[in-house]
């Protein structure tokens, strides 16, 4: 599989704290990459570094061979890097439709307000929010807001999509629906990197898993291998989980 994104020895410091410590990894085209690890491991920081929200302190990020380490967030968005936020970020008073309109209008060259609004409906239909199109985004339930985040990201026609805990706070039926949506996104050819705590979802959807712990990458590989890895069990999953899954690293 061809390499899409590459991080080389990327570090990010917050004064004394090394949130990311010399992380080197690659994302290959077409894969669904799971990013897991305990709270504070640096998962969201990694997404923030790649999307230009908090630039790397050192190291380089390349997108298809092009150095994008110092590019601003809006430029990266136009290059096809889209993300959803752990804490959803809607344009609260705008209609659901106009939230998606904005995503098309500012990411696609040559879009007009009119053309973007016309195109937005298709993305809303994809995530099942077409009936709510005229409502202000603030009136949506949490599950719907998460789907709106997905629709906005999707509307940007991304090459690479980061999903930051899209399932957090959802009930099991909603998780099922969101998981199905992620799978359909992957099937449509979008490369996905997802931060996820629900191991069931990770094992269901991801083709590869990376594990971060204290800002360092401690494992990288196929899902079944990674969750059996002793360091991962130690740092994140716990022995109980590994035993239940029949995958105890000591066995």
């Amino acid at each position: 599989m061809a390499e899409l994104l590459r991080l080389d020895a990327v570090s990010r410091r917050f004064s004394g704290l090394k949130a990311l410590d010399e992380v080197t990894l690659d994302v290959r085209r077409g894969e669904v990459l799971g990013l897991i690890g305990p709270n504070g491991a640096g998962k969201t920081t990694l997404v923030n570094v790649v999307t230009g929200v908090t630039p790397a302190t050192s190291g380089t990020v390349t997108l298809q061979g092009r150095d994008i380490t110092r590019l601003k967030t809006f430029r990266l968005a136009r290059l096809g890097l889209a993300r959803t936020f752990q804490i959803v970020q809607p344009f609260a008073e705008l209609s659901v439709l106009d939230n998606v309109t904005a995503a098309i209008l500012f990411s696609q060259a040559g879009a007009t307000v009119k053309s973007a609004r016309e195109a937005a409906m298709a993305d809303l239909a994809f995530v099942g929010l077409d009936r709510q199109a005229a409502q202000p985004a603030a009136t949506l339930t949490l599950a719907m807001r998460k789907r709106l985040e997905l629709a906005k990201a999707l509307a940007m026609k991304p090459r690479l999509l980061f999903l930051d805990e899209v399932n957090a706070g959802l009930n099991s039926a909603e998780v099922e629906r969101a998981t199905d949506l992620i799978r359909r996104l992957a099937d449509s050819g979008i490369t996905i990197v997802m931060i996820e705590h629900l191991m069931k979802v990770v094992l269901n959807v991801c083709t590869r898993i990376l594990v971060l712990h204290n800002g360092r990458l401690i494992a990288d590989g196929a899902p079944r291998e990674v969750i059996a890895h002793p360091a991962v069990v130690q740092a994140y999953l716990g022995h109980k989980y590994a035993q239940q899954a029949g995958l105890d690293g000591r066995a």
Partner: protein
Amino acid sequence: MTRSAAILLVLVAAYAVVPLFSDAYLLRLGTFASLYAVLALSWNIVGGFAGYPSFATAAFFGFGAYTSGVLQAGGLPLGVSVPAAALASFVLASALGAVLLRLRGHYFAIASLSLVEVFRELVNNATDLTGGGMGLNIPLSGSSGVLQDATFFFYAMWAVLLATALMATFVGASKLGFGLVCIRQNETAATMVGLDTTLYKTIAFGLSACFVGASGGIYAAWVHYIDPSDVFDILYSVKPIVMALIGGLGSSLGVAIGAFVYLALEEIVWRNYIQIHSGLLGLLIVVMLLFLPHGLMSFRGRLLRRIGRHG
């Protein structure tokens, strides 16, 4: 074009007939109404659309007044000096905006407020160019009679109002306006979908200063004499915000109506309660904002909801 934008333009166009029925007093009031509407509509671009509470209006009003005043004193006609003041205001505001608009909320408000003080001190100290604290005399540029003069300046200010209303309408219907609203709603999300927020905010700040500068330029020619404490009066910054709040933030039509309502209030209160007029005006404003937090435009919303319930 939306219906409220169309109503705004029709109202502004219709306003041009005022001189046909007016004496010098009404013309003077009408000129002030245009001036206030220019300030409020301009402020609304950066304060209403983009949600950046700017207190810099007085800075660019004074800057425009002095730019045009100095040019006129140097012999240039009004028709050249006012557009020059508008252009200079746009360029200066854009340059300053690129720096100041990195601040948000209260920090931005204070920084924009300090612009007024800085400009005033600069003008005060550039005595050779501006006359400093002694003020600046501006040669007469209107026609001979009192009424002709008043009519001339009414139309001059009205022309700036028309230009401002057209600009506001254009912004409201454009990608720029859409982007500014996104910035107000959620700036982080706006950058994340590919919006160049710095560029948009800079243009917005420039546009919000451009016609304010032009109106300052006409004001200078109208009153023939300006001094720093007159044109850099902080009230020129505060009043447009009050007008916008009265009318309804973000709506050009509401803001323009707010400007007219404010002037009417100011005039009525001033004429009838001269000794306590500012206190009474303040009280009225507080009461209005308490009962109409979304301004006069909330009447429109209530009306629509009522129709919707019965429909």
